C-alpha cells in the first residue's frame, strides 16, 4: 500500500454531514455567546420576553439591596 492509497483510505474518516453540523453548531454557538456583550444579551431578553426581563431585573435589584443588610444581621445574631 503506497502513500496515495493510504490517503484515499483516510478519506473514509471524513466527518459525515450530520457530524459536521453538530460540530459547527457547538463551535458557532459558543463563539457567538463569547462575542455577545452582556448589554446585548439583556436587550435581546427584553425583545423576546419583556415581562420576564423586568421581573428578573426587579428580583435581582431586591436581592442586591437586601443581601448586605441580611448578611450583617446574620453576623450580628451569630
Amino acid at each position, binding site marked *: 500500500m503506497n502513500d496515495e*492509497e493510504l490517503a484515499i483510505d483516510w*478519506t473514509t474518516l471524513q*466527518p459525515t*454531514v450530520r*457530524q459536521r*453540523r453538530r*460540530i459547527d*453548531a457547538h*463551535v458557532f454557538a459558543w463563539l457567538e455567546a463569547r462575542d455577545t456583550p452582556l448589554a446585548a444579551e439583556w436587550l435581546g431578553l427584553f425583545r423576546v420576553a419583556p415581562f420576564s426581563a423586568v421581573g428578573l431585573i426587579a428580583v435581582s435589584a431586591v436581592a442586591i439591596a437586601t443581601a448586605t443588610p441580611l448578611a450583617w444581621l446574620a453576623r450580628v445574631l451569630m
Partner: protein
Amino acid sequence: MITAAMPRRSASSPLASLFAALSVHLGGEAEPLAPLEEAAIARVVEQARAGDTGARETLYVQHVDRVFRAVRGMLRSDADAEDVTQDAMLTVLTSLHKYTPRADARFAAWVMTIAVNTARRRFRRRRVQLTATGELPEIPAEGPDPADGLDRGRRRRALLIALAELPERERVIVSLRYGAELNASDIGAALGIEPATIRKVLERARTRLGTRIEALLTPDGGMS
C-alpha cells in the same frame, strides 16, 4: 501531494467560506473547501486577530475537517473525535493571539499541536486505544449503490482496526500525515520531533498499516 484528499471547491474570500459554513447549517451538503496558500492563511489569521469574524470562520472551515480526520485516527470512537474537534477548534479560534508564525511550519501544524494536546488532555486517564470491535462506520446499510457504501465501510473499519494495533506514537504521526495532510516538517514542529525521525516512523507505520489492511480485506480476513 495527496490528491485524493484534496477538496473540490476553492474559497478565495472569507465571505465564500462563510456561505459554505452557513450552507452546512441550513442542511446542505458539507462540501470541503480547497486549502488556502500559507501566505493567504497568514493574512486571514491577521484579520481574525483584528476581530474579523468572517476571517475566523474561514480559518474554521479550512481546518475543521482535517482536525476531525486526524483525531479520528487517534481516538477510539466518532463521539470522542467530535468532542475533541469541537474543543480543539474553539481553543484555536480563541487563542489566535498566541500564535507565532514559524518559518519551518505552517499554521496547520499549530492547529494540530492544539488538537493533539486536546486529545491527550481529555483522555489522559483513559487508554487512547481503538478496539477491534470499534464502532461501525456511519454509512447507510442500504442505499442507491450498496456495494460502494459497503466497500467504503469495510475499508474504513479495516483502517481503524489496523490503526488500533499501532503504538500510540505511530498512530499520532500517521494520523497527522494522512488525516491533517501535514508533511514531515509540520509534524515534527507539532510534536517536537526531528523530521528525519518522523519520516522513518511514517515509513514503518505505512508498511504495517498497509499489510494489516490488506490482510483484513482478504476473504479470510474477517471483514467480509
